[in-house]
């Protein structure tokens, strides 16, 4: 059972308030979509959860631990920018991950490499931007982690690969796992998530189960998003 608990979280960059007194509780067994316009604080929030930003005020607990060493063991994080050494071959990066993360599933990684039609002996520097993003996604998804935090996992890849990524999210889902996904491509993802958080100026505007929201507004989540943030 994994949980994320956030109480009165604030984060600012100088005078700019990225997250404004946000409180939230997420339990395992669900895929949560985090959406909002640019600058709404999505990435800032995810970075804090990933223990990559410790300069915040308020309380953040991941399975009862402040983001740090303990949370790194159970959180698999996908940043929204390239972050891996370009000099390594895909297979070397997989080996590297296998060495560093005890929950890494090498078999799964090589299987996804094949699904994405990537060559194991190809160096990252020789890959296109989209190919590089696929490698990063497969590394993140190949950990049997308790919590997955994915910042824009599908925005940079072609539709066929999007399907593979969405499939891997369903496959990676379990009763004990929690997945938080930020995206601006709601269309592709809205059937995959079971609840959604609309973030605006660092605050939660709407939060709820996707099917409940559909019932309540008679609209798709994407239409609801467009209506609110037109």
């Amino acid at each position, binding site marked *: 059972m994994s949980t994320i608990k956030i109480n009165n979280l604030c984060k600012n960059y100088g005078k700019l308030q990225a997250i404004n007194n946000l409180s939230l509780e997420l339990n395992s067994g669900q895929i949560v979509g985090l959406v909002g316009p640019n600058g709404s604080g999505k990435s800032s929030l995810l970075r804090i959860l990933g223990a990559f930003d410790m300069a915040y005020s308020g309380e953040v607990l991941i399975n009862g631990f402040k983001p740090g060493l303990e949370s790194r063991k159970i959180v698999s994080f996908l940043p929204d920018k390239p972050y891996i050494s370009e000099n390594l071959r895909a297979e070397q990066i997989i080996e590297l991950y296998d060495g560093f993360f005890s929950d890494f599933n090498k078999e799964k990684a090589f299987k996804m490499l094949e699904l994405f039609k990537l060559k194991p002996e190809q160096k990252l520097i020789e890959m296109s931007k989209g190919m590089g993003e696929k490698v990063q996604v497969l590394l993140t998804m190949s950990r049997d982690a308790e919590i997955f935090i994915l910042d824009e996992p599908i925005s940079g890849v072609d539709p066929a690969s999007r*399907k593979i990524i969405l499939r891997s999210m*369903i496959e990676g889902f379990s009763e004990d796992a929690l997945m938080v996904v930020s995206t601006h491509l709601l269309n592709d993802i809205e059937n995959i998530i079971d609840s959604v958080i609309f973030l605006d100026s660092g605050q939660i505007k709407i939060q709820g189960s996707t099917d409940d929201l559909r019932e309540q507004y008679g*609209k798709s989540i994407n239409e609801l998003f467009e209506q609110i943030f037109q």
Partner: protein
Amino acid sequence: MSYKFDESQPIYLQLIEIFKTNIANGTWKAGEKIDSVRNLALDFAVNPNTVQRALVELENIGLAYSQRTSGRFITQNQELTRNLKHEMAENKTRDFVKQMQAIDIEQKAILDLVQRCLSLEE
């Protein structure tokens, strides 16, 4: 695979309809084991919890039952499946009739039309 859902309606309700159709037309046979939630979620490309919710609903109306260890099965109650079939047929026909009336087609014309379409099918 690759179902097109109407995303302005709750997905689980649409899944229930699909499952009911599968039972009515025999794709899912009486007494047969239902595929795992994960596999169904992958097939329909939807959230596993949504599939779970639809299957629980299916159990609530008696069309499926769970066995603690071996999984979920389609009901063997023939009467229930028969009723389901009738109910679905009736609902669809009622919708059809409503649509016909909405464009002002007379009763006789409706029957003629149905007969003609059926003979064309053959």
